[in-house]
């Protein structure tokens, strides 16, 4: 009986739910988490890299953070193969906009266009939804720094601080507790690291399990997307004090 309404993506259950979409969100709940915080002078994205095997070569570049355009970046939680498709679409959209208007695409418009794609997969039959949540961060001349969260249903919303992926509810409530309006970028990084250190499964935070990216304005007024190096991260972890020297070597 329970299989009646979840075998197709586009059919409502009698309670008015779309099970496939909910399952997709469930899939994201198991993925490495990511946290985004809007600061007064930028946006901070922190992500947890799941180390699945000791033998796996961790990628030199980022694997959770993606630059979409010069003024826009996103953090991903969910099925990476799905995400790659969406990230590609997003990049194409951003360049198409620049081609048409010779101006960077406003952040919300990009988020919206991507969510339209996601929504399509909840309505047209025979296809499964994208199992991906995004945190978009960016800057545009109309609304300054912005942070958006999107889910597989194609919904998106703007946030001051948001978390996606494993343990996102715990992270979200911690953010709610500790977020203040006048957070600077440095403090935002500290807060994100603190929250992540408490919601992550592993006992100690190390730079190889983390990714940190920031978007801010250079003195010239240009938008800068900057990914923190592993060495920089180690220093930051020590400074923020979230990483008490672990007694046992991390496995």
């Amino acid at each position, binding site marked *: 009986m329970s299989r009646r309404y979840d075998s197709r993506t586009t059919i409502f259950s009698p309670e008015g739910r779309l099970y496939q979409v909910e399952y997709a969100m469930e899939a994201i709940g198991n993925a490495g988490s990511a946290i985004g915080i809007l600061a007064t002078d930028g946006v901070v994205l922190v992500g947890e890299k799941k180390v699945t095997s000791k033998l796996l070569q961790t990628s030199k570049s980022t694997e959770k953070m993606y630059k979409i355009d010069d003024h826009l970046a996103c953090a991903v939680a969910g099925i990476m193969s799905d995400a790659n498709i969406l990230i590609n679409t997003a990049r194409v959209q951003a360049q198409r906009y620049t081609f048409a208007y*010779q101006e960077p695409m406003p952040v*919300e418009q990009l988020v919206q266009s991507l969510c339209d794609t996601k929504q399509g997969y909840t309505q047209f039959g025979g296809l499964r939804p994208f199992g991906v949540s995004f945190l978009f961060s960016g800057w545009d001349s109309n609304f300054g720094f912005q942070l958006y969260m999107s889910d597989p249903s194609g919904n998106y919303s703007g946030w001051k601080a948001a978390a996606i992926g494993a343990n996102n509810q715990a992270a979200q409530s911690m953010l709610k507790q500790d977020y203040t309006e006048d957070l600077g970028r440095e403090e935002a990084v500290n807060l994100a690291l603190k929250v992540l250190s408490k919601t992550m499964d592993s006992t100690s935070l190390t730079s190889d399990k983390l990714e940190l990216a920031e978007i801010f304005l250079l003195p010239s007024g240009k938008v800068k997307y900057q990914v923190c190096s592993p060495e920089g991260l180690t220093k930051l972890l020590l400074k923020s004090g979230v990483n008490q020297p672990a007694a046992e070597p991390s496995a």
Partner: protein
Amino acid sequence: MECVFGLVGDGFALIAADSSAVNSILVHKSNEDKIMVLDSHKLLGASGEAGDRAQFTEYIQKNVHLYQFRNGIPLTTAAAANFTRGELATALRKFCFGQSPYFVNILLAGYDKEVGPSLYYIDYIATLHKLDKGAFGYGSYFSLSMMDRHYRNGMSLEQAIDLVDKCIIEIRSRLVVAPPNFVIKIVDQNGAREYAWRESIPSV
């Protein structure tokens, strides 16, 4: 024959255009408005083939409106100019299936909070220039010379209108096929609007 010209002043931009609708040697109308109010802070002065002008300017206007409805923010003048240029450029390569490019030359004036007033020149082969003063049509031979001589940076509205009147007088006195009537529109922080008509014969 056609005269469309415009200039940027201190905190405003203006466009002036003749208002004659002609075919061959016949004047059909002398109060044809060739300057479209594109949105609240943009003016689109156009010259060229009459049908193309109406079709293309309206197409641009509707797309600019659509953008605003979809996104809740207006296009900047620069973005609108680039969009217009892009549409012209796309149409330019469409000679097949009975389609042909638009024969329209455009002056786009606008006012943006961040950059102030600006004027863009877009011709029918999709050239785009940002200018302080520009002109199209037979009238341009005279209005450009007039503006070269008398245009100054940061002109007041009064000085600018005076210059526009100088241009119109020059066109009327030196151009064989001079149009009788002109319309002047301006755009500043308060929006785009009609400023005045310069009519030497009653409108027909």
